[in-house]
């Protein structure tokens, strides 16, 4: 039996009857179900649920539990639990009484992608107010049932009772259980005051962790369905220029004649293999002889930044305050420097995987996309089907940190399934994910910052070069010949008015974006966790330190004097206090191994963050070891401080990795960093001690907390290098070779 969509058209209300497990008559094979303990019914039909209906958001079951329909994906960041915390708080339920279900197009509200660390910030208010509205409706019903005005009712754990008469009570489940509310969602129900919170702000444990520890969690890579084939994509090892794609000159199908079950599937320049046996698919993909045309048009790793500067660009003044010419002309100290940042790759630890089952008029695609509705559009385009016929079902993959190859894998699986006439599971190989990633953009910056004789910042100018994010996934580009294109822009794609100098009170400021066209001779790029912020902070916060030095001020003291905003001051002081920051005294020692400390500020698009790094530098080898790193974040009301501490801790470690080690390398034709040897990341023996600090502000709206510390952590390490050695590096990663070369020039 095929695990497929057709004939399983359940009206959404049937979901409600299922109560606990939400496992209803899904026509999937035994094995598939066994591996889908939390499987939900596939609901076809309307394009997506009506967001103005309360039933789209909340279902109350007869067993006095609630299902909250959340349009965001769990990525290991804890958002699925934290959003339930918000809902449980407003509903007066405890955490054991709330759950959510697998995210799927058609059944779950379209809340946009799970991006920009904004699930709580952007999604939270809707979940909260829907829960409050559901509670309001339940209280109205209870009022009627108990014949008592709403004002005299109180709720605990979903049991409504009359104040002072606890024997007069009714459960939520008895009021509406198993039935829809049939009420509009207006968003007008009053919300609880933070002063009355019982759950929000507490350290409720993550719901996904026990199964992950036990090995019972179903990652996308674990999903199998009966009768499926294993698929692999066949591409050159390492992408070339985005606009060139890769052109097939010839495919020699005889080259895999000895692998009996394997079959080649080709659609224009998209080449894949399928086989009933996974090892046959792996071998066939490796063995298939394909001659590719990859023109030698790339600048090579070394020539990349020169090429960016020489490019014809689209320029935009992002911010212009005061008069920078006047600001610089009257300044006591001016520093002007150029900085460079590399392309980096998401490189999920388990390469992306997707499973597609295309039939004549319906399709089910299981994948790890951050946006099921966008993935549905992308799949529709490559298979030529209307979107409403396609269901995208989300399974968490390995951590993605932005737009890795998940949609590419989903398209590849769909193309292969359509051609093979069977369900196809595509597992990208290590080199597919590393070599064909949508890289975090490289960056080039000219920074000029000035202060007066008293150490007050007076002028700030930042020019940044990078290309915008790609709009076409590789599978589509190869299969349809869709021309490479880049997004027209968003806040995360150009120089950032949130991150660049924004923490300081500077009367004269100018930020200028130079958009490079990445299509002809560069790579496809996308949002890699805290897009561009590492490069921004690396450039801007080092220059701030240089100005402070000229003014004769300690870097912490200098920053403090130039900040008026209490949120920025709050994180700066919190991190300095945790690290017991004291100004450097005396000369730098000339020992083989020297130590240094650095401090920096930064963010992504919301929240406030700061970091301190303590490092050791071996002056003979150039190797930097980060010994201890501190990160503080003020994300307003932090729904679950434990989750944010885990995020900060991860951000700090990832920042050390990206600052010291990570760089996509390439020659004239293609990318050459294809695995963990050619693209090394931080290991256990290099891992610093970490101190995460949450600055809790229950009375403030929630902001993002998954990206903001990366930038300041990067800059703090670079500033610590100067503190230790007297040398500044203008390009990262801060590899031993680069550090040594600088020390020798010094």
């Amino acid at each position: 039996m095929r695990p497929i969509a057709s004939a399983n058209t359940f009206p959404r209300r049937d979901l409600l009857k299922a109560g606990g497990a939400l496992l209803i008559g899904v026509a999937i094979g035994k094995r598939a179900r066994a591996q889908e303990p939390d499987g939900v019914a596939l609901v076809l039909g309307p394009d997506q649920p009506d967001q103005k209906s309360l039933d789209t958001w909340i279902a109350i079951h007869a067993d006095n539990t609630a299902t909250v329909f959340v349009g965001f994906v769990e990525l290991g960041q804890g958002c699925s639990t934290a959003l339930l915390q918000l809902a449980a708080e407003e509903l007066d339920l405890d955490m054991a009484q709330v759950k959510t279900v697998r995210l799927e197009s058609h059944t779950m509200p379209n809340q946009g992608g799970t991006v920009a660390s904004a699930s709580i910030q952007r999604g939270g208010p809707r979940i909260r107010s829907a829960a409050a509205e559901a509670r309001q409706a339940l209280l109205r019903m209870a009022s009627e049932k108990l014949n008592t005005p709403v004002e005299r009712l109180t709720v605990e754990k979903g049991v409504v009772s009359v104040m002072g008469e606890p024997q007069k009570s009714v459960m939520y489940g008895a009021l509406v259980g198993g039935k829809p509310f049939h009420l509009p969602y207006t968003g007008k129900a009053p919300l609880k005051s933070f002063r009355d919170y019982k759950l929000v702000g507490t350290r409720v444990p993550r719901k996904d962790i026990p199964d992950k520890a036990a090995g019972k969690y179903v990652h996308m890579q674990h999903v199998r369905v009966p009768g499926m084939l294993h698929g692999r994509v066949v591409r050159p090892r390492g992408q070339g220029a985005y606009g060139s794609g890769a052109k097939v000159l010839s495919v020699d199908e005889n080259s895999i004649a000895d692998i009996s079950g394997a079959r080649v599937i080709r659609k224009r320049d998209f080449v894949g293999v399928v086989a009933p046996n996974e090892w046959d698919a792996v071998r066939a993909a490796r063995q298939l002889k394909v001659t590719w045309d990859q023109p030698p048009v790339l600048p090579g790793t070394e020539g990349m930044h020169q090429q960016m500067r020489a490019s014809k660009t689209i320029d935009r003044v992002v911010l212009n305050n005061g008069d920078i010419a006047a600001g610089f002309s009257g300044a006591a100290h001016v520093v002007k420097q150029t900085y460079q940042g590399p392309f980096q790759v998401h490189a999920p630890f388990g390469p992306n995987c997707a499973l597609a089952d295309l039939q004549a008029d319906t399709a089910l695609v299981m994948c790890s996309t951050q946006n099921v509705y966008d993935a549905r559009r992308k799949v529709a385009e490559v298979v030529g089907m209307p979107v409403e016929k396609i269901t995208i079902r989300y399974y968490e993959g390995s951590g993605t940190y932005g737009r890795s190859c998940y949609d590419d894998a989903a398209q590849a699986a769909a193309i292969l399934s359509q051609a093979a006439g069977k369900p196809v599971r595509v597992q990208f190989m290590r080199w597919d994910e590393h070599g064909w990633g949508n890289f975090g953009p490289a960056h080039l910056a000219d920074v000029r910052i000035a202060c007066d004789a008293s150490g007050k910042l007076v002028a700030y100018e930042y020019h940044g070069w990078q290309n915008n994010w790609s709009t076409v996934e590789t599978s589509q580009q190869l299969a349809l010949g869709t021309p490479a294109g880049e997004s027209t822009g968003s806040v995360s794609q150009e120089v950032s008015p949130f991150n660049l100098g924004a923490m300081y009170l500077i009367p004269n400021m100018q930020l200028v974006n130079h958009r490079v066209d990445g299509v002809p001779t560069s790579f496809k790029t996308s949002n890699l966790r805290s897009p561009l912020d590492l490069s921004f902070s690396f450039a801007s916060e080092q220059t701030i330190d240089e100005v402070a030095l000229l003014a004769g001020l300690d870097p912490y003291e200098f920053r403090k004097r130039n900040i008026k905003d209490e949120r920025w001051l709050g994180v700066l002081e919190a991190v300095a206090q945790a690290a017991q920051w004291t100004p450097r005294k005396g000369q730098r020692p000339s020992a083989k191994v020297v130590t240094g400390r650095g401090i920096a500020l930064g963010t992504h698009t919301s929240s406030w963050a700061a970091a301190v790094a303590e490092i050791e530098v071996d002056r003979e080898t150039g190797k930097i070891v980060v010994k201890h790193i501190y990160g503080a974040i003020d994300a307003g009301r932090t729904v679950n401080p434990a989750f944010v501490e885990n995020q900060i801790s991860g951000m700090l470690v990832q920042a050390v990795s990206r600052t010291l080690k990570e760089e996509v390398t390439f020659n004239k034709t293609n990318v050459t960093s294809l695995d963990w040897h050619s693209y090394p990341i931080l290991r256990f023996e290099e891992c610093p001690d970490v101190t995460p600090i949450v600055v809790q502000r229950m009375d403030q709206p929630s902001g993002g907390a998954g990206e903001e510390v990366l930038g300041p952590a990067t800059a703090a390490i670079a500033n610590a290098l100067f503190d230790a050695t007297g040398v500044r590096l203008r390009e990262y990663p801060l590899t031993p070779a680069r550090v040594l070369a600088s020390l020798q020039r010094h």
Partner: protein
Amino acid sequence: MANPVQIRVNDRSVSVNSTPDTPLLYVLANELQLNGPRFGCGLAQCGSCSVLVDGVETRSCVTPLSKIGNKSVTTLEGLPAWYARQHNLAQAPALTPVQQAFIDEQAIQCGYCYNGMTVKANELLSKTPQPSAAQIRTAMNGHLCRCGTYPRVIKAILRAAQKQGERA
């Protein structure tokens, strides 16, 4: 499809049909439907596919089926029973102390690397029951985590070692 061979996985003798050159990972994942070992690189660089072979942490992605022979394979699923045997417990616990410590420390983010982390940490504690943080770093160095959970893995292994020590 090759002639069936018998291998010993999680204390059970099982018959598998993969060809002798098939990496053990694909046999475990597809024929035996085990979710512990998982594909990460296929190059023995990352540790996501780790299993114990006769108690030794082994990368199943590059270990052909033919190399297994009579050896005993333990996957994540079989670790609690393996742990019980190591410690002469009458009954296998639901989770090894290492796994419980990962929960107690809320160490996990995406969790994909935790198969390898769990297998390797159990191997470590079987040989070195009370490791220092430095010994943990050295032992675990061949296991990568892209989410950056290393500090919590170290803390959790220390916690598990302490718990195991208390029990002994």
